């Protein structure tokens, strides 16, 4: 009933191709944006910012980047963590070499470096695909993490080998470092994530998006109808790695505050891949749903038993979390390979035609 589309007529192709052909979708997104921009910041505690809001946004962005490569363009990648690291280290070097630089500009520029590295490691995709490409990106993963460890210039010859985010201010507010408030950082992350998501939606619904999907679905046919596969795959690597790199810079500068090389190791890659798979490959919204689940689940497991007055060992919680995430992944791979996004699509379809069964 809420989703009734009767009376919403489209009289031009422009209207039919609009971002929200159905009014209720626009309303729903408006509601979410109001929550994200106004309601959450007004009500959230320091703990909520640090454990839920900011990490969900950052992980969503990283998953969005991976999804463009794997979900839209069909190129499997296991190197997401390392590409996030490239973004983080690039941002760190820029900030320390040029302390006058605006931190937001630095974060947005750091994606350019990871895009370059991504294209470089994407070149094998012109020859190999599927599992073999995954192995090639795995090589990138190991090589880059090794580089973060061994190339002391990257962490300014720190004795600890880790990078420490300095206090950076913008218009009188600290946006990163120990003195920055969680709310300011949340707003910076939200701005960048909203902007990049909007651009990614446009890219995926336009000509480039169709080119990527054609490459994913049947590359030989794509080439025979005029798609330059090299260009299609490398733009996918570039756009994907750019977004992942920015997510990496946000990860360290707006959330963690410090990073060691092994933070970007393969568990991070897998975490982002899980978010993309559970959320739904080939979707934009799925990344957010997946991140909410993966980031939110441990928090829920930690707090709910306390409310109920049940005492659970923290080691047990850790194990429970791993077991639940693991079984969810298996569940989705079998029952709903298109992820949470597909579930929402089915619900929406049902709501539109309700009360009729089909």
């Amino acid at each position, binding site marked *: 009933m809420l989703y009734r589309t009767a009376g919403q007529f489209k009289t031009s192709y*422009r209207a039919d191709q609009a971002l929200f052909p159905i009014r209720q979708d626009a309303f729903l997104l408006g509601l979410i944006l109001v929550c994200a921009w106004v309601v959450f910041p007004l009500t959230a505690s320091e703990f909520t910012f640090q454990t839920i809001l900011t990490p969900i946004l950052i992980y969503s962005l990283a998953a969005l980047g991976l999804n463009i490569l794997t979900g839209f363009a069909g190129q499997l990648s296991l190197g997401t963590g390392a590409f996030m690291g490239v973004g983080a280290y690039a941002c760190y070097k820029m900030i320390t070499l040029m302390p006058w630089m605006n931190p937001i500009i630095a974060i947005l520029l750091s994606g350019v470096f990871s895009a370059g590295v991504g294209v470089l490691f994407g070149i094998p995709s012109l020859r190999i695909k599927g599992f073999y490409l995954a192995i090639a990106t795995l090589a990138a993963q190991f090589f880059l993490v090794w580089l973060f460890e061994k190339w002391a210039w990257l962490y300014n010859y720190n004795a600890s080998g880790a990078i420490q985010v300095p206090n950076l201010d913008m218009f009188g507010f600290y946006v990163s470092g120990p003195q920055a408030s969680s709310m300011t950082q949340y707003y910076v992350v939200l701005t960048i994530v909203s902007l990049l998501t909007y*651009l990614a939606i*446009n890219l995926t619904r336009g000509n480039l998006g*169709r080119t990527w*999907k*054609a490459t994913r679905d049947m590359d030989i046919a794509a080439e025979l*109808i005029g*798609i330059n596969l090299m260009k299609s795959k490398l733009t996918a690597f570039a756009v994907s790695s750019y977004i992942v790199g920015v997510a990496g810079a946000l990860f360290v500068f707006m959330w963690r505050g410090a990073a060691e090389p092994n933070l970007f190791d393969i568990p991070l890659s897998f975490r982002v891949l899980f978010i993309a798979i559970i959320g739904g490959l080939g979707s934009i919204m799925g990344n957010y749903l997946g991140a909410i689940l993966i980031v939110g689940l441990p928090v829920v497991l930690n707090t709910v038993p306390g409310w109920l007055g049940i005492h659970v060992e923290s080691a047990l919680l850790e194990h429970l979390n791993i077991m639940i995430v693991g079984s969810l992944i298996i569940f989705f791979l079998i029952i709903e390979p298109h992820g949470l996004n597909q579930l929402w699509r089915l619900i929406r379809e049902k709501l539109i035609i309700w009360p009729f069964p089909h």
Partner: protein
Amino acid sequence: MDALTEGYVTEDGRRIGGVLMEMKNITLRFGGVVAIKDISFDIREGEIRAIIGPNGAGKSSMLNVISGFYHPQEGEVWYKGGVRPSMKPFEVARQGVGRTFQNIALFEGMTVLDNVMTGRLTHMKASIWEQAIWWGKAEREEVHNREQVEKIIDFLEIQSIRKTPVGRLPYGLKKRVELARALAAEPSLLLLDEPMAGMNVEEKEDMSRFILDVNDEFGTTIALIEHDMGVVMDLSDRVVVMDYGKKIGDGTPDEVRSNQDVIDAYLGVAHD
């Protein structure tokens, strides 16, 4: 050769123009196997040209040479009055050679509309930045190309399925969507690899009608491979017959039908 460049008039009164594409002494080998042996023929503007032959005669290989997927070891491909240099398949497609496939090669994860829109990508020029911002050039281009695509969708009578994911469609409709995708590119030369394979009589009739209409309405030159002899003889203006990689006949359907080599190739001949 020069005497023929003016073209000819078909039995039903259609004017056929000059040579659009000419294959000159094409030889294609895979290792020791000779798939195509010294074949020459031409395709004229506005005609429907068929390539027929028994299984394994090298017809599909020939089509793949035309669309640039295989590169022949010997011979030249002339296109629009010049020798075509060795180029990648996507470059050939961008020069106006469209095609469909023997085994349907649609993009299964996309809707019918998106599939057909993909056919127009060679006409879309907005840069990646313009597409990311969307407002302005990218949107105008998207709407303009959508209008072109809708004309094709109307023409092939697939309006009702335009938002259906291709994976859900039955076989006959998939073939039609594939034709739509190829037509959306507005090709000068359209290659059809067994457009009627696996269809029932009714679907074949529909497809034949569409092929004739496309040729008539848009003036598209068509080269097709087909096994159904009745269809081939009715549709095409001229026919090339291949057997074991060699050309054994070339001419109007009537000429080919009465060619002894062709009859032998199809019916078999006693070797003694």
